[in-house]
């Protein structure tokens, strides 16, 4: 993993508070596990029917019946529980999921999220993303600031089909930590190796700055 990605993931790990029930999306969010302190009190939820997910296992240690929602063979913590998909999403929609960390294609300044479909190119189905995004108590997007072609992912409006409306609370990228507020995007932190100007240039909507002008680095 590049230094930039490591920094993003380490920063995202600080979003996980003690005692939370957390669902980590496929890809970068999954890497957060490696950045939590030893013995940190948290319950990871996998929407295919597991609470208390432990670290990923290698092929030789794997149980053929025990995967996370991304298909990785995982271990369980002492106190883990298995359940059916009905119970798993009741947990999400019923308000028991404190935090989800997800990837994104696009985010809008009102918190709209698009992360499941690119018409004509990618439409595999929404899976569990819609309910995670709409119903987690807190939604953090962990994503590169721009797409592969350098275009901003943080926009005033999404152009892609939405996963859920007004659901994103915070966005953590390789460049910045940005909150979605009633006044739009609010810059909270800057990555070590970037500048305010670079972040503004890479963002497709206006950024509110801290009123005291002091922007912490991460």
């Amino acid at each position, binding site marked *: 993993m590049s230094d930039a990605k490591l920094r993003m993931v380490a920063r995202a790990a600080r979003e996980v508070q*003690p*005692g939370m*029930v957390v669902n980590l999306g496929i890809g970068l969010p999954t890497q957060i*596990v490696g950045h*939590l302190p030893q*013995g*940190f*009190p*948290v*319950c*990871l*939820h996998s929407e295919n029917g*597991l*609470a*208390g997910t*432990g670290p990923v296992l290698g092929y030789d240690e794997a149980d053929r019946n025990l995967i996370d929602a991304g298909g990785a063979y995982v271990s*369980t*913590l*002492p*106190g*883990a*529980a*298995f*359940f059916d998909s*009905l*119970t798993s*999403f*009741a*947990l*999400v*929609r*019923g*308000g*028991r*999921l404190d935090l989800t960390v997800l990837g994104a294609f696009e985010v809008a300044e009102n918190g709209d999220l698009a992360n499941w479909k690119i018409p004509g190119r990618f439409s595999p189905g929404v899976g569990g993303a819609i309910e995670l995004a709409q*119903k987690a108590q807190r939604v953090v997007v962990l994503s590169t600031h721009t797409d592969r072609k350098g275009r901003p992912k943080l926009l005033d409006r999404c152009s892609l089909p939405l996963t859920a409306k007004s659901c994103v609370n915070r966005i953590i990228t390789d460049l910045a930590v940005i909150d979605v507020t009633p006044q739009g995007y609010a810059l909270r932190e800057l990555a070590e190796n970037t500048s305010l100007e670079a972040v503004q240039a890479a963002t497709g909507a206006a950024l509110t700055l801290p009123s005291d002008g002091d922007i912490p680095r991460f």
Partner: protein
Amino acid sequence: MSLPDKSTSLEEAIGRIPDGARILIGGFGVPGTPFALIQELLRQGQQSLTLVKNDANETGLGIDHLLASGQVERLITTHIGLNPRAIELMNAGKLQVEFCGQGILAERLHAGGAGLKAFLTDIGVGTELAVGKPHQELNGETLVLETALRADFALIHADTADRFGNLRYAATARNFNPMMAMAADCALVETERMVELGALAPDDIHTPGPFVDHLVELGPLSQEYGLVRR
């Protein structure tokens, strides 16, 4: 990573409940009724409560104490035939009672716990039980709209639990407890046995820990938990 410890005391658990709270209470008859949590609620004396419970227990047992003490303003239930006091209070206008079909109560709690808003059913259509409820057509059939039911608290009786709140129930003591644990903002659990994390096999858990907020291990069981001689 490790799973958080949610164990607490009876006093502290029930102390979270304010006057006017809406409380789901597990149990069908004696089995699964959280008698110790109910006794502590009687002792602390919170007022103007709305209770949701399958039945009103029998005279001198369980929520009958709360009816006798005047702490209950409203009861959502399926059957109170074994509690003459409940019927008397209802008939005297001192207790508001809302009756619900038993399986419909279970589904309303499921809907509440699962974050759904309402469901459509043909149960009760054309009977007094559907009077006053919204009706609507679907595919040419007249259906009743039943709303989801959630509450501020749930009082749950488990047979065995670990400190994260994974629960197992015994025999027919399961009944409404799983749905109620899921349908409350704050689920308070009493358990006959507390075991170490990992002592319950992950395949054998009836209510997963994420649905539980606070957990009390019971001492020796009071007489209320025992057999009823008829």
